[in-house]
């Protein structure tokens, strides 16, 4: 009599592609700021990274995984931009391509492509470059509004590097150390992004715009960014209370500079490599926060966001296992 074709007969407009497009839109402010301040080089890094990611993903999906052309879902573009975001603006372009190779081929496609990777591809690519080319990866160009063509590149230390190496005991005098610390950028510059740092991390304002856009579009929830940054802020604040050098643990500085905000908003919220439930995501974010603080304070590295997110990525299956939702009508009353 009647053929039953399966309900529901309407589906939501949101698709994988539209989500990826929203993420790309959310990253446009940060891209614009970096091109404005770092000039042509930053632009080239972004373009190279995106092109390499698309090309590699295309080749992998066609010749290796033998699936349909997966680049149409725009996820390769997101990975490409994110990878560029955590690289210095004047990195040699061939290194960028190596980073893209690690991100797409090794971290994403080798695990089966979109939705199957364990680690965040962009962060894995960045971390590989960081370990393989430590010198080039810590050569941060200084921002210069009037020098788009990059005729005159000066490099400078990031705020986190400055406070890492400030040390009362090794400086000749306390006065020297204070002078050294005076090279720290002020909060206004940090907020706008007129500081040294990787391509996408410099501007707090631009990342916040992207964050609110993603919240508005309901692509991400507030849990991960707020708990991640909150954890770092609170621990740093608690440590600074009992410290002889409070500037080292200045919680505002730790939240506003470095890759924390970029990582918290764009990397730790990646669907595939973060837990499924809201509670799981909170555990994940707090774990990232604690690890970031530990790395920043106790290791030789000044930056701990990439490592901490990658480490927590590995815990995601476990977190998912222990935060399974309680089925309606069970385990209560």
């Amino acid at each position, binding site marked *: *009599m*009647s*053929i*039953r*074709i*399966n*309900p*529901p*007969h*309407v*589906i*939501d407009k*949101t*698709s*994988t592609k*539209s*989500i990826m497009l929203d993420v790309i839109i959310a990253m446009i402010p940060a891209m614009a700021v970096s091109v404005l301040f770092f000039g042509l080089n930053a632009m080239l890094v972004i373009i190279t990274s995106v092109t390499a990611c698309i090309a590699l993903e295309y080749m992998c999906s066609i010749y290796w995984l033998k699936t349909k052309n997966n680049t149409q*879902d725009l*996820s390769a573009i997101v990975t490409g931009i994110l990878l560029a975001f955590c690289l210095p603006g004047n990195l040699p372009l061939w290194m960028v391509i190596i980073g893209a190779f690690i991100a797409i081929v090794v971290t994403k496609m080798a695990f089966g*492509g*979109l*939705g*199957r990777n364990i680690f965040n591809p962009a962060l894995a690519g960045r971390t590989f470059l960081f370990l393989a080319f430590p010198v080039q990866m810590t050569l941060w160009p200084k921002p210069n509004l009037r020098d788009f063509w990059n005729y005159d590149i000066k490099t400078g230390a990031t705020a986190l590097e400055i406070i890492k190496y400030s040390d009362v005991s090794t400086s000749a005098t306390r006065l020297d150390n204070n002078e050294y610390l005076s090279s720290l950028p002020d909060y206004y510059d940090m907020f706008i992004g007129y500081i040294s740092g990787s391509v996408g991390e410099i501007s707090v304002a631009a990342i916040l715009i992207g964050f609110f856009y993603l919240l508005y579009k309901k692509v991400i929830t507030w849990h991960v960014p707020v708990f991640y940054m909150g954890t770092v802020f609170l621990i740093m604040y608690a440590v600074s209370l009992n410290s002889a050098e409070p500037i080292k643990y200045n919680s505002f500085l730790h939240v506003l500079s470095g890759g924390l905000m970029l990582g918290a908003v764009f990397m730790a919220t990646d*669907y*595939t490599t973060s*837990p*499924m*439930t*809201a509670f799981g995501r909170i555990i994940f974010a707090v774990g990232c926060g604690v690890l970031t603080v530990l790395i920043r304070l106790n290791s030789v590295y000044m930056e701990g966001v990439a490592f901490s997110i990658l480490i927590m990525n590995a815990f995601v299956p476990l977190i998912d296992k222990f935060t*399974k*939702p*309680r*089925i*309606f*009508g*069970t385990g*209560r*009353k």
Partner: protein
Amino acid sequence: MYRTTGIYIKNNKISKYKEIVDAGVPEVVYIPLDRHVGAPAKPVVSKGAEVKIGTLVAKADETLSVNVYSSVAGKVVETDDKLITIKTSEDIYEKSIDTSEGIITEIPDSKTLILEKIRKAGIVGMGGAGFPAAVKLDIPETCKIECLVINGLEGEPYFTADNRLMVEKAEEIVIGARIINKLLGIQNAIIAVDEENKDAVKALVGVTKRYIGVNVKAVKNKYPTAAETQLIKKLFNVEIPKTKLTRDFGYIVHNVGTVYSIYNAVMKNKPLYERIVTVSGDAADNPQNFLVRAGTPASYLANKAGSIDNARLLICGGVMMGTEISDVNTPISLLDGGLLMFKKAKKDTEASPCIRCGRCSQNCPVHLQPFEIADRLKIGDTPKLYKLRPSDCINCGICSYLCPAKIPLLDFIKMAKEQIR
């Protein structure tokens, strides 16, 4: 009001202010005998028999079954196990039916008489479940009922039939509620109404002032708050597992349409043979709420609200849980609150890989993990599948609706149910 999981879907209640119109009599009706829960009814008329409106045409076969009555006067042309086809003639009612207009307020004293009348009238749950009402209301001594909940929420987009019924037949519904109150021996009925349906709230509040034991509650209508267990969670913060009945927890839930039919059965001796159906959708030129006789062909009804030729997609029931029909003569049963017609056929979207966004799991009203069920089903991990409890699914379809990768998750859950059976 307590928190339930759910989503807001564009509700498209375009026929909200359209008065109920009689759809009239089609040339032929096909009365279905097996749409309710339980055994199909057994035909008691044979080919060639003359029937009137309200003539018993099929009898309840077991306790869990219902009587089926003719919705038209005419001649039986064909009978089989599932369908009775009747060629219609001019309306003649059975003599026992009180066709007068007035509202009767005196409720019979005898509980057994009330229950017997409901049983005889063949009343089923008209919210879509189709559970025989008399069986639901035949409460064993051990159950202590505290509250009767009358469900006036319509979760499905486009549906406005129950809303119109509450606006136009408010007093009948309230008296119906009092009949059930009496049967259950309580004085506590709550009519839950979508807070956006202000007309219905106003009409019911106006009436309930004059009657004891019936109250109106305006509820925020997320999808699928209209589902029985979800509504109870919303109102009382009690979660009823799939394996239990609401009466084990002291609640009885009835749809407003069912309550209205109970009123008709008890007060007017009118068996259940018609219901209100919303005909809507973008291919309907004039979306309306019709009083429809059971067994009316979909094509007849669709032509009343527009032209069936404009519709490329016909859905019997709602867009979230209804059934796409390919045969335009599919009869409308007593469980279908709507017939929807759309200009565009459903696009066949190809599923892409799961990106683990978690939307399906976070918005599932029973907190299942559809993505994991689909995964385990694909690799055939039956023991794990059992633990994920796909059988608790209430078929709301939110997972399939939300999935950005367009994976038909509800279909996988249904398959998983079969797998672990």
